[in-house]
């Protein structure tokens, strides 16, 4: 009975949502401290000073900045990132008086903003719940349930605070999975990163609630440079969720994030994203450039890292949440739904790097292209010569909803030994007019029918999301398809 109720609820919400547009496009009128546009060493020093950082971190930033100067933006993605004028962006914007720890009470205007986004900043009196780290522009404004989690030794706070309160932990792990030399955007992020979350789950602890970070861009003409670091020590478990929205603006805004995850012996991390940055309008004007490096290191034996992402937002998406499977018998998973509509472009996928023996990985990618959008899956499965007995299964499906959209796949497979098995399945399909008419004949409008069919297509991935997120994500898929049919 319970099981039966689940999809229904989602569907009801789909209906409601099918009538809405991008509903997170509002701007909060709040006093914001923004540093002047431009980027040089002084700006890097200023960001570091604003955050009261120790010397070693400033060093890290400066090294990253100097390295960044030697790099060029990558052009291999199947996306058209226009020339970005990095001197025309402000690298730090903070709602005044609301940096964590500086104010006792959260600004009502901020609270209202997050309420409107459906993100509770009040700790509810319920036993179970979701702990939230709310990040507005460059700073974390509130992290809930910190004390309760601290009782178990779980650290969940903004990375800025972690630098102050747990410098040794941060120093030990920061930049170890994604070094600043990794790529152009990673170097930029390492130089100017502002806020994001820090999670540490100690040995043997199963985090009792979902941890989530909600990223909100509010200020205009600023970039957001999220930095998140998650460490799961031996035998630990955590499920972490990430959500993102931004106001509707005619200009493009940059979100260049780094997420690093370290998974020790027998530990497990589930990382779920519902990415709903403003995608631009129906003519392709405005929207976020989401240029992100996410990578996890399964360092321990029998460790497991699972990425689940539902990508519906951003004008341009360039991200490849990856797993380095170093531990023997480690497990990497990547479940993705990427939906592009209008003039959106997405180039997303994963890398599974098998270094440990008997490590296994699963990739399920579902691309949905509508309007004039371009949707690409880019994936790499690499099995090192010494990593014997490995397995990978990849399923890569594309669904086309229009004649003017494109679906592309760029898989790379390198297998270094003959005891490993790699499977790759791929399909491309078009939404079927017979299916739509069948729904019509049962009284379901074409728009709702497309929502149903697309959600059905993406079900395998949606099922991997935590319940609260799954409902949200279903809704999103339908809303994002608005105007794509008929």
């Amino acid at each position, binding site marked *: 009975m319970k099981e*039966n*109720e689940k999809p229904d609820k989602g569907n009801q919400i789909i*209906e409601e949502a099918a009538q809405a547009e991008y509903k997170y496009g509002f701007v909060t009128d709040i006093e914001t401290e923004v540093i002047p546009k431009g980027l040089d060493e002084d700006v890097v020093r200023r960001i570091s000073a604003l955050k009261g950082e120790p010397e070693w971190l400033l060093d890290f930033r400066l090294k990253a900045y100097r390295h960044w100067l030697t790099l060029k933006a990558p052009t291999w993605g199947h996306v058209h990132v226009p020339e970005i004028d990095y001197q025309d962006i402000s690298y730090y914007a903070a709602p005044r008086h609301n940096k964590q720890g500086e104010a006792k009470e959260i600004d009502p205007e901020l609270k209202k903003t997050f309420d409107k986004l459906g993100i509770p900043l009040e700790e509810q009196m319920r036993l179970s719940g979701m702990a939230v780290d709310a990040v507005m522009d460059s700073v974390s404004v509130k992290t809930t349930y910190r004390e309760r989690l601290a009782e178990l030794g779980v650290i969940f706070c903004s990375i800025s605070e972690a630098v102050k309160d747990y410098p040794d932990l941060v120093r030990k792990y920061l930049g170890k999975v994604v070094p600043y030399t990794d790529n152009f955007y990673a170097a930029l992020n390492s130089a100017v990163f502002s806020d994001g979350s820090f999670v540490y789950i100690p040995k043997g602890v199963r985090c009792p609630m979902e941890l989530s970070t909600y990223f909100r861009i509010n200020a205009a003409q600023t970039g957001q440079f999220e930095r998140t670091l998650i460490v799961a020590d031996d035998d630990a478990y955590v499920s972490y969720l990430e959500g993102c929205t931004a106001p509707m603006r005619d200009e493009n805004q940059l979100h260049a994030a780094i997420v690093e995850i370290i998974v020790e012996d027998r530990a497990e991390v589930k990382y779920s994203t519902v990415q709903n940055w403003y995608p631009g309008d129906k003519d392709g004007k405005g929207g976020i450039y989401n240029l992100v490096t996410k990578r996890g290191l399964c360092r321990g034996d029998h460790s497991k890292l699972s990425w689940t992402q539902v990508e519906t937002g951003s004008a341009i998406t360039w991200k490849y949440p990856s797993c380095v499977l170093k531990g023997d018998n480690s497990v990497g998973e990547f479940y993705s739904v990427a939906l592009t509509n209008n003039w959106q472009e997405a180039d997303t996928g994963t890398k599974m790097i098998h270094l440990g023996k008997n490590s296994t990985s699963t990739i399920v990618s579902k691309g949905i292209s509508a309007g004039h959008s371009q949707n690409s899956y880019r994936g790499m499965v690499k099995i090192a010569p010494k990593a014997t007995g490995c397995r990978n299964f990849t399923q890569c499906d594309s669904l086309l909803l229009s004649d003017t959209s494109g679906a592309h796949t760029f898989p790379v497979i390198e297998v270094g030994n003959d005891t490993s098995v790699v499977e790759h399945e791929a399909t491309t399909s078009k939404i079927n007019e017979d299916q739509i*008419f*069948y729904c*019509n004949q049962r*009284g379901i*409008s074409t728009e709702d029918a497309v929502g*149903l069919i697309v959600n059905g297509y993406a079900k395998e991935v949606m099922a991997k999301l935590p319940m609260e997120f799954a409902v949200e994500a279903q809704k999103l898929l339908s809303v994002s398809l608005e105007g794509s049919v008929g």
Partner: protein
Amino acid sequence: MLVIKDLQASIEDKQILKGINLTVKPGEVHAIMGPNGSGKSTLSAVLTGNPAYTVTGGSVEFYGKDLLALSPEDRAHEGLFLSFQYPVEIPGVSMVNFMRTALNEKRKYFGQEPLSAADFLKIMREKRTIVQLDNKLASRAVNEGFSGGEKKRNEIFQMAMLEPKLSILDETDSGLDIDALRIVASGVNTLKSKDNATIVITHYQRLLDYIKPDFVHVLYKGRIVMSAGPELALELEDKGYDWIKEQVDSQQ
């Protein structure tokens, strides 16, 4: 309830229906028979608003409303149901989700509140027994992996759920073994009342042994060329369509 006058329709510029006249009253069962390619399935597609077909003339009234002016989903809400000859699969969409959406859309159309999950599941449990579908149906995706017989039973199940005023059964007997045929026919008969009507499209007398028609029409070359009582179906079973074809072709 249904008045079809001089209905003409084409697909990709090919004229299929060339002037159909048919009146259906509540409580009646009409059988439409005819050789392959005579336009039987086209008639059901045009009545339900399949966008692949273009109406080129004539009119259809359904309870006084201009049926052809309504969208396919509104025709469904008004009480028109088609049991498809080839029910499509919709992967990943559960029957529960699908049917609940359909039912609540209809309720919305009539200004009613959506059904609660509990109420909906109760109705679903009741109705599925009509065609002996088991409980696993609820969690299965629409028609995905269903056998031919299950698909047809599933069509009648949906008919039971939606309680249409006029049901069109488009070759519901095709691909059915005798047991499945019996289940499907008995389902249809259970749902029959003095307030609803059924149009049965079929090639064979076989189905009409179970679903007794009040009228039998023969469709040939896009027109109804003969109408009579149930005895006509028996005659056709016996003699085939050639004699009608000859009769019609010689008149032209």
